[in-house]
């Protein structure tokens, strides 16, 4: 690459290209190194409607975590199978319940007025308690399919 100038008195005012190329190479390496993050998420199962009309078996072994929204926008309430549980106790209690179980299944029922982040947090706590099958109970499921 050559440049000529018409400078008076022997002065050269051509811009030095080398630093520009250095900057360009730095930017190139930066964009080669930065990769978009892999998507991650939480798996959940949806109970399917039963094939034949049958009475819902009241399985004593099912654990249902119920998240209720408190009026006035306070912290949501948590219940494990009808017993109230404070948020701090949720993980320890779930861990102790599932420590003795071979098939770890959890169902989550949430109030429709809650933010999704609350439910995502509960699913996350379920995964921390080593539950591998987490089911979501929707209004239609709760009404008996």
């Amino acid at each position, binding site marked *: *690459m*050559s*440049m*000529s*100038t*018409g*400078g*008076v008195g*022997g002065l*050269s005012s*051509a*811009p030095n*290209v080398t630093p*520009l190329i250095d900057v360009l190479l730095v*930017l190139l390496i930066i964009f080669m190194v930065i990769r978009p993050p*892999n*998507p*991650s*998420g*939480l*798996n*959940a*199962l*949806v*109970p*399917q*409607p039963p094939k034949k009309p049958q009475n819902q078996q009241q399985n004593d072994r099912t654990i249902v975590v119920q998240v209720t*929204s*408190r009026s006035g*926008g*306070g*912290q*949501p*309430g948590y219940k494990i199978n009808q017993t109230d549980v*404070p*948020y*701090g106790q949720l993980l320890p209690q779930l861990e102790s319940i599932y420590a003795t179980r071979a098939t770890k299944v959890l169902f989550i029922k*949430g*109030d*429709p*007025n*809650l*933010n*999704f*982040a*609350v*439910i*995502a*947090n509960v*699913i*996350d706590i379920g*995964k*921390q308690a080593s539950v591998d099958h987490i089911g*979501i109970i*929707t*209004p*239609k*499921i709760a009404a008996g399919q």
Partner: protein
Amino acid sequence: MGIVKRDEGKKVNSDINVTPMVDVMLVLLIIFMVVTPMLNNKVNVDLAKVLNPTTMPDADHQDSVKVSITRDGKVYLGATQISLADLGPKAQDLLQNKPDKTVYIRSDARARYGIVMDAIDNLRTAGVDQVAFLTKPIRQSAPPPPVPGAKNPATSHTPGS
């Protein structure tokens, strides 16, 4: 690079001035740095933050079925808005030729859970039984966010008061 010094002042300087070209290149670079994240044909959703998500590389496939639920309750299948009633049949069409019948739900953290449940209900009628909620992982350096639903963001996890 060689510099040739001319002492004639009468000839026209026809050399290309590089500085404006570099300026244009930098402007284009900045434009593409800003625009590229919006190019993936996805609805912009603020995903919920979670401590232990499982990585799901299949969610980024072009033909994976993605249902996005925005904060104001709009439901999108892919990038097009859709009503809840249409969600079931259209999702069923998309899932027909796929071995892995997982539907990826990208729900905003502050979306109303009732809309999420309705979407899941409509997907259920399409025969979907496995659903994956996409989330953002929480970096270890930042403290975990407080349980949403509290008025003031407290840093402890004890409820109420």
